[in-house]
């Protein structure tokens, strides 16, 4: 069995409270030993083993990143992305685990598709954790068999791309998911308020002659869902709000937590960095759902991340083919890619600009999402946990070039942006799956 030593790096493992120079021995896909530099016992002396060595001097070693919200487009839309290309992009971005949303073709609402997505035949570079559809075909009418989906490997349920709109169905979903210990991830959008909308409602939408998407379309669903969680509090229902984009939704989450409810949320890098003005003159790579919001909303995202109200940074990686985005703004599909830019943007802005400690940035990108999805042995690097590791140079600045992406698609608003923190190696269960020059 191959073994790997990561030598001389600075280990930051927020979940374990480790922040210092450490050597790591990875063996059989797990962390076998952690020791002060040069002190690994199992590689010393007579019973020393034949281990490959990665020299991480001057680099940060951290638990592999976990993205709890991606669209890998398989099955059904392999021209946008495949599980192989999406996970290759993820590995390049320092991720060792991604949770794949079920809005595939067909919708992942069955144990068969859930297993198919995890099959070795898909050629994934890293672990794929399917999130299964909450309702049949994600139509919001009849809930799926969550126990069967969970035993097939589903880590949560969601109708992402669409909301679970009906009160009764959402209530039933929360209760049924709680019974089998799964989280419900809500795409909070009251679609009755967003018909024909293609960007955030406000002065910019008016000026551009585009129909606007009101903040209330998000916050009203979050508030409704929190009321349901309150009603189901004895069942310990867990609501997770996907891609939170409005200050009002964050306020609702903050209040729910004060009331002791299991309500969590994620924010995407584009929502803590960009505003609706970044749509510019109809840049379809700044079109996504939920849309880029006002500066006040964007600032609220930053504050909530710094305050600790936000539980995870998730990319909502949503690849679309070039020809799908080279169209009239109103006709362009929603979504941008994000796996290769999440770490670089988070370090450049949250850490460097807004002074969020490195350990907390990494926790939002690994330990916390792993905990939200109940991924045992992930998001931390204690002995016995999975050997999912990212090694990066925290100081290195570099420029992201969409044309160099490993994704099949290049629909990003961050082309040409300066990133901080260059991934040197990504290691998934003991295997190097990405290495930069």
């Amino acid at each position, binding site marked *: 069995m191959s073994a790997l030593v990561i030598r001389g790096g600075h280990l930051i493992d927020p979940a374990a409270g480790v922040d210092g120079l450490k050597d790591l021995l990875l063996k059989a896909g797990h962390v076998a030993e952690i020791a002060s530099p040069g002190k690994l016992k199992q590689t010393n002396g007579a019973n020393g083993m034949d281990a490959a060595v990665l020299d991480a001097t001057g680099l940060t070693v951290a638990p592999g990143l976990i993205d709890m919200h991606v669209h890998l487009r398989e099955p059904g839309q392999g021209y946008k992305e495949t599980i192989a290309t999406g996970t290759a992009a993820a590995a390049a971005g320092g991720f060792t685990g991604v949770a794949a949303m079920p809005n595939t073709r067909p919708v992942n609402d069955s144990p068969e598709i859930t297993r198919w997505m995890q099959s070795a035949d898909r050629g994934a570079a890293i672990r794929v954790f399917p999130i299964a559809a909450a309702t049949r075909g994600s139509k919001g009418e009849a809930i799926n068999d969550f126990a069967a989906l969970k035993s097939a490997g589903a880590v949560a349920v969601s109708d992402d791309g669409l909301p679970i709109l009906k009160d009764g169905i959402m209530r039933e979903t929360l209760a049924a998911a709680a019974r089998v210990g799964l989280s419900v991830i809500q795409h909070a959008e009251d679609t009755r308020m967003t018909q024909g909308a293609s960007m955030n409602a406000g002065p910019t939408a008016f000026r551009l002659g*585009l129909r606007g998407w009101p903040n209330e379309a998000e916050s009203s669903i979050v508030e409704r869902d929190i009321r349901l969680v309150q009603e189901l509090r004895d069942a310990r229902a867990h609501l997770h709000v996907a891609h939170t984009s409005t200050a009002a939704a964050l306020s609702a989450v903050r209040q729910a937590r004060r009331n002791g409810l299991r309500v969590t949320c994620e924010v995407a890098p584009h929502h803590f960095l*960009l505003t609706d*003005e970044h749509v*510019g003159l109809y840049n379809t790579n700044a079109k996504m759902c939920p849309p880029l919001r006002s500066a006040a909303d964007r600032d609220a995202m930053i*504050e909530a991340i710094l305050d600790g109200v936000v539980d995870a940074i998730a990319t909502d990686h949503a690849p679309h083919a070039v020809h799908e985005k080279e169209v*009239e703004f109103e006709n362009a599909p929603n979504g941008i890619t994000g796996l290769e830019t999440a770490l670089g943007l988070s370090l450049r802005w949250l850490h460097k600009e807004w002074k969020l400690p490195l350990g907390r940035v990494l926790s939002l990108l690994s330990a916390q999402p792993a905990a939200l999805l109940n991924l045992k042995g992930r998001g931390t690097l204690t002995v016995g946990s999975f050997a999912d590791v990212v090694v990066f140079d925290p100081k290195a600045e570099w420029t992201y070039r969409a044309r160099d992406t490993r994704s099949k698609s290049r629909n990003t608003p961050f082309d040409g942006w300066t990133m901080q923190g260059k991934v040197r190696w990504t290691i998934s269960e003991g295997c190097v799956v990405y290495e930069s020059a």
Partner: protein
Amino acid sequence: MNAAATPARRQLHPPPVPASPFPYHPGSLLSASDLSLDEISQILTRSTALENQDPLTRDRILAKRRVALLFYESSTRTRTSFELAAKGLGADTTLVSSLSSSIEKGESLKDTGLTLRALGAEAIILRHNSSGAPWLLEAETRLPVLNAGDGMHEHPTQALLDLRTILAHLRPGVETVTTETLTGVTITIVGDILHSRVARSNMLLLPRLGARVLLCGPKELLPELAAQTGPRIIIERNFEAALRQSQAVMMLRIQAERLAGLQLDLEEYKANYQLTGQRLATQAPAAIVMHPGPIIRGLEVTAGVADGPQSVILEQVKNGVAIRMAVVERALAGDAQGGRA
């Protein structure tokens, strides 16, 4: 609105909005805001010169140059006047409309534009039902693109011909405009502002010359945030009060095709916002009455007002040809191809 629920603890210095790369071609006219006051003055001056020029010499200016008209929406005035303008300068024009072309078969705007360019089009005049389409076409073809109306967004040549009409009546003889040319002038735009590209282009143009623009209409068709579009734009929902302040009043059609399910009580609308002879005579007996067309007689204006002495609606149409000659000439200026010296 809870947007301010979390007050910023510090100055955040978030990433800036990058500068716009548009227009790619100096001959393009995508937005009324793209034009400097000098450029507006030049267009006005050239409009008059071209209008007065002998048609037999005028048609040598763009002789055999190729201009494509690409129309995704029906149009009478704009299409005909652009076509007459281009032909009046001697250009060859070709009309591609969505109902009689490969657009019906699913060809994209990008491919349609590239095809027209390959066929020798040197400029494209685009009317499109989707806001922003001219920006896409310009980015993909890098040809001069003239926006002949995009969705609910802009219609810059309409704003220029409206300006020419306003100047002819309120500032006769003035063709060189400054930030004070229309100081003291109030223009009221009435009706379906929300869906109107004419309103947006005029809101971007007229205040830059010092005019005050009053917007008048019901909440469903005129959201409060319309006033944030620029300086000197004011919402006045009382039609009579707006009329009393106005030297020009611009009536708009209710755009039934863009209402997207919105239900309007037309009788109530007429009661509040129809320009009747009575309203005009009592509140604005000296104002000019404008309308970009098409007019729905008996809805936003009565027939008597449309045909009355204060109406300059047909003058606007006539000015459209002059303005569009100048704009088409500008599109192809300094970009001579083929046998043209």
